[in-house]
């Protein structure tokens, strides 16, 4: 998950200035989060898909990510249909599902998926480090950028630690079964993972202090705006504006 597989590519989208990517991602998310008309959502879907096509991203990788996100959305479906007032459709014991509830849950599901698709296209085609630098350029508070960067960095550390530990298990012939031994091993694994990652991050921090770290990061290379970036960002803004028009005017009924 943290190997940044989608960042390796040579498409127009990969070369697109990360600062613009962040801006577009923010504007698009905002507009879509406020959209409720199906025609606007449909336009949003087209927008997301064309970005993915532009980035030539592998369909399989995208699907895997969508499945992960929808795992979370599943929880919405356990709650929402029963918690919105309206016309009843069916009952489960004391709980009653309403037509409005189901409608609302559907809307949220569609909306989040469209947004996720666009974010995959826009944000996962840039390395996290470049995103961080773009955030600095966009005047996002430094503390937030650091938080963002270190969260990512340590997730990576935890993943590496996890791989090491599971390898250690594998080479000694561990096979998960439904047994006390398996549960105990997994419990150790999780415990070790937390402790070791914490220790590791502590040592990384010390190493940074030894090199005079005072809470500031420096950019070695500047981003350069090309005419291609300007063209692309104008097109995308037009796209987002179109979605807005569809939602807030009555061009299409």
């Amino acid at each position: 998950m943290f190997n940044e597989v989608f960042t390796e590519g040579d498409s127009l989208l990969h070369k697109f200035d990360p600062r613009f990517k962040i801006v577009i991602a923010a504007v698009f998310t905002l507009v879509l989060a406020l959209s409720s008309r199906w025609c606007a959502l449909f336009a949003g879907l087209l927008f997301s898909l064309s970005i993915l096509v532009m980035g030539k991203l592998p369909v399989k990788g995208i699907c895997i990510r969508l499945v992960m996100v929808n795992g979370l959305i599943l929880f919405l479906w356990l709650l929402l249909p029963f918690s919105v007032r309206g016309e009843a459709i069916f009952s489960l014991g004391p709980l009653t599902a309403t037509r409005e509830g189901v409608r609302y849950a559907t809307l949220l599901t569609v909306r989040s998926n469209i947004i996720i698709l666009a974010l995959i296209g826009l944000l996962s085609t840039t390395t996290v480090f470049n995103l961080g630098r773009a955030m600095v350029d966009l005047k996002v508070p430094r503390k937030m950028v650091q938080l963002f960067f270190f969260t990512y960095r340590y997730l990576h550390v935890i993943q590496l630690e996890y791989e090491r530990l599971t390898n250690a298990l594998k080479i000694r012939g561990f096979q998960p079964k439904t047994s006390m031994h398996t549960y105990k091993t997994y419990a150790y694994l999780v415990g070790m993972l937390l402790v070791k990652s914490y220790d590791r991050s502590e040592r990384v921090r010390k190493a940074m202090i030894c090199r005079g770290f005072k809470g500031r990061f420096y950019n070695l290379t500047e981003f350069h705006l090309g005419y291609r970036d300007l063209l692309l960002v104008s097109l995308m803004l037009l796209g987002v504006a179109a979605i807005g028009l569809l939602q807030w005017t009555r061009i299409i009924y």
Partner: protein
Amino acid sequence: MDENHLLINLKDIHFSYPGGREVLKGLSFSLGQGEKVGLMGPNGSGKTTLFHLIMGLLKPQHGKIEIFGQPVEEEKDFVEVRRKVGLLFQDPDDQLFSPTVLEDVAFGPLNQGKSVEEAKEIARETLKALGLSGFEQRVTYRLSGGEKRLVSLATVLAMQPKVLLLDEPTTGLDQETTERIIEILKGLKLAYVFISHNMDFMLQATDKIYGLLEGRLALEEEMVPHTHVHVHGYGRLSHTHTTSDDFRPGIERDK
């Protein structure tokens, strides 16, 4: 040597980790201008701990630390120490955190207040000196173990320290690279202390070797006559082996 010209001066240091046994028991150590010192000792004897104490990453329970003739006690004293003393961590994974090699090597110089251009230049030169030209844009966490160690060394050297503390700088490096590092170290006009379990390397790159045993340092001047049941390069130089006692023919054969 005159006390005031000592780079590092530790007196009667006692240290134990929280809840652990005492690792250092009244250790004293001093390093003079331009001295090149080796540090040996069994695993777990406290070598790494000693380095971390010097850098102020750990605080001794008892004892005095003086760096460049100044007593250091508090965090702000050590900030200055870290500008002049470079520490190479035992595990290179602890040292590297930037995505690209160039960024990581330039990180120290930037913290020292160098401009971006200067820092990049220093980083490139340091990499070149270590034979790492062409590594600038490589991703740090995808390097091999030995490459990581070399890059870590570059990150420390790039800060142009006055003293180097090297925690097993050659572990995991091949013969040729090890020799290159020895040459680089010998060419440097600065004092260093390094930890290694490699006797050949020690004898070539240091003027004297300390042993860390039972929480104290002892100078290993005494020549210990011992027989060898194995063959290897550098056999003409006098040397000792820490593993000679439990040497098992055919298994622990040196290179």
